[in-house]
């Protein structure tokens, strides 16, 4: 165990000549003292290349998924059209990546497994990186901790060559048989570093990470076909996308994130010279519990960046329930000299030269896209309704028993489309969406009866313009011809109200159910926000300016954002290092906890770089006022009123969700209804 310390290898560099510190040596190998022995007089030496590579592997090769990432990135850089991955034992026993890319000559192969050897930096400019890799580290690092076999045939070559490296010991190239392209086989990962081996998780977990890594790369490169096989099981099979870039990306998105996401996706395309942001985001009603489904690709490179999550949170601020997260797949293209990818060996982090610009672009593009998304059928919700209907008979089913379709014995008989029952996410999520309005119904009815504050609020908040507009007389009461629904009325024509709470409307191709309170709440809130934006946030001066002690960077951050804060009604000034003095607060907040607000703001600025917290607080006040000032559940509406509400929803941004992120309406397509009744 003391071999290194006692008998240094021949190539060590002694420091004795420098300061004569060699001194008397201690007896070799002090008895089994564990850990690091600091007092031992060590000499400085150059490490052997294998050890250097193993150390590098510690950064680059963390687990099978990182091996996969490096190898697949190489394949992508080699211009592959399809990439096949084979795993055994979650990638621990075996991990093979086969591509049909440009291949390597035997000489190149020998060089490729050396450190800092790469074909990807033709010039010596680290700022002009157009490939995924560039460090020339991955292959030697992997080779130093595993048994690596490289087989490659360049296009046009007569035969393939193969080279094996075991734990850093390189063999010689031998002729082999392989179609044009490269095959890299990694066996017994970490056999040379047992410590690292112990840190690996169960094969299933490792496979999960591999799939996740491949998902990212596949989303970034829809033009490349991918497949993943673990043992005998085919885990992933993605055909190269056809068609133009957007539809190709959308296909890939559907294949990876699921059909419901693809159906709820809206394209994003924004440019702020020289940045270009494209991709797709899901409607807020289609959301996830974590940020795992938020992808950012910078020049085709999958990147994990907190900046993205913060920007997405800001953009979705008032359309998502606070514990849900949006689904976004964004592609950011920018000149290579504006982004530094050489931050971390694994290259999952990047640094933007102008992070604020990137953030601003993401937030504004997403907001704009969300605001543009007009009411439309929410197929995902519709599907959930169907799921819930089919899950009929479950004890806590939100729908009255009378509305359920006749139940057949499970899996047989007259309802063959039932298939295996899924008591899964869909039904649960629908139950969540469907049941959520219940508390509002209660409080709404209560406040309505009591008269009181809320109602006096109603009087002051006028209905949106669309609602008070004179409505065609024909709309009054008459049951119209269902075919007579103009194209620009995606929410259709109201046919009635049920339980004095929900509006039923017939649209061109189905049934729309609207939660009147949720819908009107959003309309009122949008108008109030508009008014707020127009008039500016009014600032109430403080008679007793509040001094808030913070740490220095926090105070600095706040002061840098002072201008933005002033626009939101918060006037702050510097008060010595590490403190700010608050002179004005937003009048909307009234008598509020200023210190708490400023501290939260400082934290928020550190986290997301924007005064989101303050916007949230103001939004909350506005939302509460909107909630009190809107039509309650339990109020009877005439057909004209209902139609006016539907028309207003069609022209109001973000009207698909109420202020709390709940859906305002669901759509059932005629085809779905027909399926429920076994007509299809």
């Amino acid at each position, binding site marked *: 165990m003391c071999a290194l310390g006692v008998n240094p290898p021949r190539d060590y560099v002694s420091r004795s000549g420098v300061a004569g510190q060699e001194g008397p040596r201690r007896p070799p190998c002090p008895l089994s003292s564990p850990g690091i022995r600091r007092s031992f007089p060590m000499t400085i030496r150059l490490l052997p290349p294998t050890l250097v590579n193993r150390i590098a592997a510690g950064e680059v090769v963390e687990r099978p998924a990182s091996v996969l990432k490096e190898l697949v990135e190489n394949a992508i850089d080699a211009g592959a059209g399809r990439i096949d991955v084979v795993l055994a034992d979650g990638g621990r026993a075996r991990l093979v990546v086969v591509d049909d890319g440009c291949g390597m000559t035997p000489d190149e192969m020998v060089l490729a497994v050396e450190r800092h050897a790469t074909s990807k930096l033709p010039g010596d400019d680290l700022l002009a990186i157009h490939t995924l890799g560039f460090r020339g580290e991955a292959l030697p690092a992997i080779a130093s901790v595993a048994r690596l076999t490289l087989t490659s045939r360049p296009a046009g070559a007569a035969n393939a060559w193969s080279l094996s490296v075991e734990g850093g010991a390189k063999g010689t190239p031998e002729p082999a048989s392989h179609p044009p392209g490269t095959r890299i086989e990694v066996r017994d990962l970490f056999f040379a570093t047992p410590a690292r081996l112990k840190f690996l998780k169960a094969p299933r977990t490792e496979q999960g990470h591999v799939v996740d890594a491949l998902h990212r790369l596949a989303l970034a490169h829809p033009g490349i076909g991918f497949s993943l096989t673990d043992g005998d099981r085919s885990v992933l099979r993605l055909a190269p996308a056809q068609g133009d870039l957007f539809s190709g990306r959308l296909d890939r998105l559907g294949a990876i994130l699921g059909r419901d996401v693809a159906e709820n996706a809206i394209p994003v395309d924004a440019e702020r010279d020289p940045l270009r942001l494209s991709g797709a985001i899901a409607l807020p009603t289609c959301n996830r519990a974590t940020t795992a489904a938020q992808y950012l690709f910078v020049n085709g490179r999958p990147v994990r960046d907190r900046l993205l999550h913060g920007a997405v949170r800001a953009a979705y601020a008032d359309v998502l329930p606070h514990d849900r997260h949006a689904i976004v797949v964004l592609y950011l293209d920018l000149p290579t000299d504006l982004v530094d990818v050489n931050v971390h060996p694994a290259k999952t982090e990047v640094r933007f030269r102008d992070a604020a610009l990137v953030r601003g672009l993401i937030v504004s593009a997403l907001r704009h896209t969300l605001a543009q998304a007009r009411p439309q059928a929410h197929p995902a919700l519709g599907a959930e309704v169907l799921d819930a209907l089919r899950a009929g008979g479950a004890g806590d089913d939100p729908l009255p028993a009378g509305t359920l379709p006749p139940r057949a014995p499970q899996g047989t008989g007259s309802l063959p489309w039932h298939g295996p029952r899924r008591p899964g996410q869909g039904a649960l999520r629908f139950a969540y969406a469907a049941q959520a309005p219940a508390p509002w119904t209660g409080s709404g009815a209560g406040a309505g009866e009591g008269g009181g504050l809320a109602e006096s609020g109603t009087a002051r908040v006028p209905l949106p313009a669309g609602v008070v507009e004179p409505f065609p007389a024909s709309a009054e009461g008459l049951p119209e011809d269902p075919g007579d629904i103009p194209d620009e009325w995606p929410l259709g024509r109201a046919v009635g109200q049920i339980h004095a709470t929900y509006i039923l409307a017939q649209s061109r191709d189905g049934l729309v159910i609207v939660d009147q309170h949720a819908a009107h709440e959003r309309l009122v809130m949008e108008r109030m926000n508009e008014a707020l934006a127009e008039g500016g946030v009014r600032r*109430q001066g403080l008679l007793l300016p509040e001094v808030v002690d913070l740490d220095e960077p926090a105070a600095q951050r706040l002061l840098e954002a002072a201008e933005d804060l002033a626009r939101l009604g918060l006037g702050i000034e510097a008060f010595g290092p590490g403190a700010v003095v608050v002179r004005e607060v937003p009048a909307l907040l009234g008598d509020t906890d200023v210190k708490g607000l400023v501290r939260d703001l400082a934290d928020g600025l550190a986290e997301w770089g924007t005064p989101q917290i303050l916007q949230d607080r103001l939004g909350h006040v506005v939302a509460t*006022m909107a909630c009190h000032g809107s039509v309650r559940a339990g109020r009877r509406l005439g057909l004209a009123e209902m139609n006016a509400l539907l028309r207003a929803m069609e022209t109001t941004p973000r009207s698909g969700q109420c202020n709390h992120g709940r859906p305002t309406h669901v759509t059932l397509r005629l085809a779905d209804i027909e399926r429920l009744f076994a007509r299809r």
Partner: protein
Amino acid sequence: MKLTIERTAFLKSLGHVQSVVERRNTIPILSNLRMDATDQGLALNATDMDLEIVETLGAEVATPGLTTAPAHTLYDIVRKLPDGSQVELTHDATEGQLVLRAGRSRFRLACLPVDDFPVMNPGEFSHTFAIPSADLRSLIDRTRFAISTEETRYYLNGIFLHATENAGVPVLRAVATDGHRLACVETPLPEGAAGMPAVILPRKTVGELRKLIDETGMAVTVSLSEHKVRFAFDDVRLISKLIDGKFPDYERVIPTDNDKVLEVERQPFAQAVDRVAAISTEKSRAIKVAATPGLLTLSASSPDAGSALEEIEAKFEAAPLDIGFNARYLLDILDQIQGDSVRLTLADSSSPTVLRDGADGSAVYVLMPMRV
């Protein structure tokens, strides 16, 4: 314990003490009243641990004794008894129940052990003085609207009462502020109050005290120490803890060099403010005041509702000035001013404005403008 008491008198006292008892309590005994029957009569005692009220009333006591009974229930019962009835209370220590008889009604109330009832130890009072109840009422009325409700600045959740001098005359001064506006009212210093500690009376104490002294015509005896205060009048004693905090140096924020003087008739001004504010839908109720020589223009606008404009005559000599206010804050202050005219002194549109009663110098109000 056994006693008989007249319903009307009992109800009045119960009404006083029960309002100190919180509706919801985590400590059961705090829902109860302590009842002490002695030869002098019946003493009722209620507390929320911060504020204690003791009221004595005449009763025919047959057997002296001590017990506790649920305050709100007892109050409810007595309230619903017919007017003029005699209430008989009997407490049997062995059963632990209070029996209430009146006419043909009979109630048994569960009691809690008297020993559990927390009686506040007032400690020593360093200063005692008597203040006419009208003066005390006026101090409270004209300042309490400005008390802050924001709990994090607990030291603003009350009225700051202290002895000081104004132009060489010793005064007792009450100050309250919520950081947006400030009210400062004074009255001649009562004898014995000189050198009293400066104290902050909690909001709840202020409210209870104000209710109680509404009915009394006599002087209120105030006893003070650093941590407690006692108000005694008629048969009532109110003992309260004080807010343990430092009231900000309020004199610093009362501007002394505002040079632009505006005098306007109070009632027309208040009514105009109220009218103009009707247009402003948002919670902050911003109105704009434009002062030009001889004329005051009030305006408000709202993207939803439209706009309002009203002119009112005023005495104003300085250069024209535009300033915004929260209409509610402005009205709160105008409501406290008794005289016919109000005198505003201003500096500019972002500095505090001082408001005074045109005739009466005992009150000063400071209002921070709003940026509109």
